[in-house]
């Protein structure tokens, strides 16, 4: 097995003016790992994702994707290097069809960024692949509907599909099951498990049962610091974590 981490965060810090929201975060994600980031509200989980995906510049430290630094790159450059993220608040193309939402991602994967001189309907590879993603996220039946018309959980599935469609193999999912019912959550977890097969997954999640059933390793983020990293079992038994975050519920 390749020992070099796919994603390495070393000394990552972020300050908004005088407000420091992230201190010296060090984190290694191995190839093929499913890694969860948990922590109380305001711990900086979403900030961490925004830093990795290039939405905000770092204040300190370095982020490396397969050994190459990605800090300071624009979001689209990071995506082209194989890291794709989803959003906590559904972030789709509301007026385009579900199929087209996914096709935009597949086009990016094929490097069709300035395709002005051909017809998109004639691009068989792109269309077939978009249809395949549509089926994998189980939205084939609503493929022709405007994405804005989908139910909430369908939009969440589309959100994940769009993240995958660009062909990245490091996937960051920001609360993929937020706001879902128990049943929907189970289905979403199944979906995430299935479609991230063979990829590296970093996920922010609030639902502990999801974290413990889906992920190989867990990092606990509290006030901009990584409190602990380990297997779900280790995290469950870590006294510091219990005190800081999990509380009596798990203890």
């Amino acid at each position, binding site marked *: 097995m390749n020992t070099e981490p796919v994603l390495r965060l070393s000394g990552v810090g972020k300050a908004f003016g005088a407000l420091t929201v992230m201190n010296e975060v060090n984190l290694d994600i191995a190839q093929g790992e499913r890694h969860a980031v948990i922590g109380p509200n305001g711990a900086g989980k979403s900030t961490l994702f925004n830093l990795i*995906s290039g*939405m905000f510049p770092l204040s300190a430290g370095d982020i490396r994707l397969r050994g190459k630094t990605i800090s300071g790159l*624009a*979001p*689209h450059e990071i*995506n*082209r290097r194989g890291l*794709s*993220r989803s*959003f906590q608040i559904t*972030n*789709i*193309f*509301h*007026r*385009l069809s579900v199929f*087209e*939402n996914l*096709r*935009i*991602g597949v*086009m*990016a*994967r094929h490097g*069709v*960024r*300035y*395709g*002005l*001189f*051909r*017809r*998109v*309907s004639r*691009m068989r590879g*792109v269309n077939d692949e978009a249809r395949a993603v549509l089926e994998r996220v189980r939205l084939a039946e609503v493929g022709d509907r405007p994405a804005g018309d989908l139910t909430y959980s369908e939009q969440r599935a589309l959100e994940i599909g*769009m993240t995958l*469609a*660009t062909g990245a193999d490091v996937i960051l999912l920001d609360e993929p099951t937020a706001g879902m019912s128990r049943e929907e959550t189970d289905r979403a977890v199944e979906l995430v498990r299935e479609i991230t097969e063979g990829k590296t997954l970093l996920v922010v999640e609030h639902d502990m049962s999801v974290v413990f059933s889906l992920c190989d390793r867990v990092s606990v983020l509290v006030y901009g610091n990584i409190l602990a990293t380990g297997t779900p079992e280790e995290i469950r038994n870590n006294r510091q974590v219990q005190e800081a975050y999990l509380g009596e519920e798990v203890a």
Partner: protein
Amino acid sequence: MLARIVTIAAILVVLVAVPPLLDIGWQNAMTNMLIASLFAVAFNLLIGQAGLLSFGHAAFFGVGAFATLHLMVVIEDGGLAFPTPLLPLAGAAGGFVIGAFAGYFATMRSGVYFALVTLAIAELFHSLAPHWDGLFGGEAGLSSMRMPWGGLVYGSSLEVYYLALGWTVLSVFLLWAYTRTPFGRLTLALRDNEQRVRFMGYNAHSTKVIIFAVSAMFSGVAGALLAISNETANYTLFSTHVSAQVVLHTFVGGSTVFFGPVIGASVFTLFAFFVSDVTRSWLLYQGLIFVLVMLYAPHGIGGLVDAHRRHWSQLRWSELAPAYGLAALSGLALSGATIFLVEAFEILFSPEYDAARRRADGAWPPFELFGLDWQAFGIVTWAVPVLLAAAGLLLLPRARRALRQAWDGVLERTEADRTGSVSPELAGAAER
């Protein structure tokens, strides 16, 4: 699809076959209609498809016109044997280059800031042009003549019309084909959600610069056609009026429908052609129409047409026709009252009427309107607009209720067709 092809073919046949039967005034009006249509469709690439509202598109329209005139001057001086029908290429090139340059800066921001930067760019041209003799011919502008080429003289309005028709059809077709390309789809995605586009691996800024440049390029072609038709251009082409006019055309026609801007541009060009001869208040009426369309049909005329097309099989004309009839009656009565008041006041406050009063020693002489004499303080005079307005206002709520009921029915049937059955709730509503 077939219906659409037949419609477009029929319109093209009319556009080709009818103008030879018309007089020169009409032919010129038709040429202006084509130019305004192309300009509006090019402009709508930005607002309708990319969601970018430019308030300075006169810049690229004007650049296209001046670039073409410069080329015409060179040809006229005998320096170049350039085919006259290809003159708009100069406008396209000028629009593209200036559009790419201006677009690079304008698209760094979006929303209001984008609109303001485009406004500033057009203003820059507008204030620069009168002082720059070499490039824009100073305040007088540039003039030239169409040179004969390939057996055609390009002397008559009809020949110019056909040249404009060819270029407009070609350009509108290319802009339509654009929507079918991968980049055209990306343009729509950018309108819906620029952030997501960036996180899916696209460079949003360079994408917007290209969209902007393409829009400016076709605006330049429209400007070129105007230069060819008028054989002259001056700095007023860069004025806010031109920029505002294309916004007006596009929104009244409907920016959400591809051919909407064509409808808006044609309607308003013909409106100007007819009404500007009859009354000096035509700009006021144009503004009123714009406000009414924005308030009551925000998707424009094209949006209304499109709604009927989409729901064609669910339309019940037995319900719609009376509702539309009622709305038309109410609208006619209200516009009658408005027009009467506007025209009457225009006369009463005019210097001519003032002079007439002075001749009549301060009395209020009768004034002529719609071929009749009216007393300035006559009861009959003011009863006409008051009665018309009252009738219109009385009918208005009824018309609106009838319209709402008829369209609720259409939407209900659409929903039922889509889900395959009528939900109990909707069935209950229908019975009520």
